[in-house]
């Protein structure tokens, strides 16, 4: 290949990249240009639409082969988990392949403390179990983080992967946690309907979906504020360049530990909600592939951008359910889709603005012939 060929290729790549960036930035600018009240009305209408989604049951979106509200709920749980993982991977830049471990800790806390049939038999109500679940997940995050966060990059990845497996195998092999059979009679969230039946029943998944939706809004708002706080700026600094951050006086270890703990807390919350809806959990629900799906959701959507992460989670959780008739091939197709995604949109579907700039810089480096 001659040099001029190479330059031609680079130009084409650049044009392609520009178009991509524009595609993302133009709607954003348009949105930001709208007057505030219009933004609020549009946002409100969108929120109402989301709330009504399981009742409307729109024909194209609806899942013919499984209960639509249940699918929506599962998608919601994925969104929660992906938002939590986004704090660790997207903001602080720590590669965590064992995130399912925190999710499992949350779910198991609710089951062990809440279920009358667990050996502990404290049978606390769901609302009491959730803070316990979040606290225990945070503790797990600190326990995992304290010895391992001094490792870098890929070492951290394998250690966290191992942690996820340790959690699952511990649940599988210890009697208190129910072993392979799992724990049943996990408490559901409280609340009664007018006719005295439980709001969070077994059959209807709509209330669970609304619960998950509400939590997603809360977590999105919280992580948005967190990102703009001192802690969030520290995380971004660590992600960009850990050594430079340390030199500038950011206590990197402390903030990395915080990222782990915060991410774990959200993961624990997602697990607690999941356990409440299922009413029954066993180690099968917490296989390591789930962490990989969560990570795929974060990266596919655009690491670091909350909206992108939610979109990624929707894709990862919803598409396999929607196309259940292709059951044989759906993971195969999913795998191929991940490759295609990575090759054509390395920055994710909706990249964070900061990331988009970084990627553009990397692209320039390619053209200048500097290989990193």
């Amino acid at each position, binding site marked *: 290949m001659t040099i001029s060929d190479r330059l031609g290729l680079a130009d084409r790549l650049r044009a392609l990249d520009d178009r991509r960036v524009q595609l993302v930035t133009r709607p954003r600018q348009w949105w930001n240009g709208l007057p505030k009240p219009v933004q609020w009305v549009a946002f409100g209408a969108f929120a109402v639409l989301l709330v009504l989604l399981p009742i409307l049951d729109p024909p194209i979106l609806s899942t013919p082969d499984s209960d639509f509200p249940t699918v929506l709920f599962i998608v919601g749980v994925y969104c929660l988990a992906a938002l939590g993982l986004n704090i660790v991977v997207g903001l602080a830049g720590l590669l965590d392949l064992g995130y399912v471990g925190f999710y499992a800790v949350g779910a198991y806390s609710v089951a062990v403390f809440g279920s009358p049939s667990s050996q502990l038999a404290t049978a606390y109500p769901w609302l009491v179990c959730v803070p316990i679940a979040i606290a225990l997940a945070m503790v797990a995050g600190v326990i995992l983080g304290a010895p391992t966060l001094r490792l870098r990059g890929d070492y951290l990845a394998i250690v966290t992967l191992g942690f996820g497996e340790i959690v699952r195998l511990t649940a599988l092999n210890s009697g208190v946690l129910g072993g392979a059979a799992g724990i049943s009679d996990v408490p559901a969230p409280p609340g009664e309907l007018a006719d005295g039946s439980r709001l969070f029943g077994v059959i209807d998944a709509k209330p669970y979906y609304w619960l998950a939706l509400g939590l997603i809004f809360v977590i999105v708002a919280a992580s948005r504020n967190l990102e703009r706080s001192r802690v969030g700026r520290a995380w971004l600094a660590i992600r960009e360049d850990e050594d430079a951050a340390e030199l500038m006086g950011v206590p990197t270890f402390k903030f990395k530990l915080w990222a782990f703990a915060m991410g774990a807390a959200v993961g624990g919350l997602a697990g607690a909600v999941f356990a409440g809806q299922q009413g029954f959990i066993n180690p099968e629900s917490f296989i390591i592939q789930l962490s990989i799906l969560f990570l795929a959701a974060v990266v596919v959507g655009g690491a670091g951008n909350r909206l992108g992460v939610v979109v990624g989670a929707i894709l990862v959780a919803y598409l396999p359910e929607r196309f259940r008739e292709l059951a044989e*091939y759906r993971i195969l197709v999913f795998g191929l889709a991940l490759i295609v*995604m990575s090759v054509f949109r390395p920055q994710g579907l909706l990249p964070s603005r900061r990331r988009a700039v970084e990627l553009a810089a990397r692209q320039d*480096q390619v053209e200048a012939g500097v290989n990193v």
Partner: protein
Amino acid sequence: VQFLLDNFWDLSVTGLTQGAIYALIALGYTLVYGVLRLINFAHSEVFVTGTFASIFVLHAFGLGSDDPVPSAGMVVLYIAAAAVGAMVASAATALVVERVAYRPLRRRNAPPLVFLISAIGASFAISEAFGVLVDRNNVRVPNLIEPQTQFHLFGASVNNRQLLIVAAAIVMMLCLDQFIRRTRLGRGIRAVSQDPDSAALMGVNKDRVIALTFILGGLMAGGAAVLYDLQFGVTRFNAGFVLGIKAFTAAVLGGIGNLRGALLGGLLLGLMENYGSAIIGSEWRDVVAFVFLIVVLMFRPTGILGESLGKARA
């Protein structure tokens, strides 16, 4: 603990056998990491391809899963043929993965996380392809070796299968080591892993070296696949997942990017797993492996021998 003491040498022999297979797969991770600084998550599927390829070769020879063990001369021939088939298939898979999932990303200088996702995609796709095209259940391997105790080592019986696995693994690793240390292509690999840009300036064809690295990793995985088939007698479309994680653990344990580290890490991991599961029960085997990894990394953050595909002459 008494059980461990009573059966120490038996456990060591089985641990070394298991560890030899880990080590061979770990070499693939370590080679790619040394050159590209990324986890080739699809390497476990490169290995699985080998396990299926060797079964296809054996079936092509007309061997069924329930046939009796053939005569000794034929066994050697069959194993050799299966090994060649597995190594070619694995190396080809590795090369395809590199072309499809990595090279386009390298061209665009994508961030490392995206390589990981692309590799995970490749891993899912290949393993599911086997699930869809071949079978989702266990696939049995034709019987080739009837384990017979050959001799005793400190009271532990060593059978011919274990002997073959450990010997074959060591021979393959020695060949690889010599290849990297002595040949021109090996020098290219070391150069790129030390400093890709300088190597490119010195006239090393980086893309070719990277492809070669994937091929070498694939060859090792193919060898491991045949040994795995002989040892366990079955394979599965998703057999690579756990084994891949273990092998990667072994690579990190020894110091990723370091060939001798992979050997040491693999053997150590096999041994520790066996000792650990003898003490607290075999259901905790994987927990022992990962806890061991975490403990080692706490004291040696870059693995036992450190990262050094380029730096040390290995």
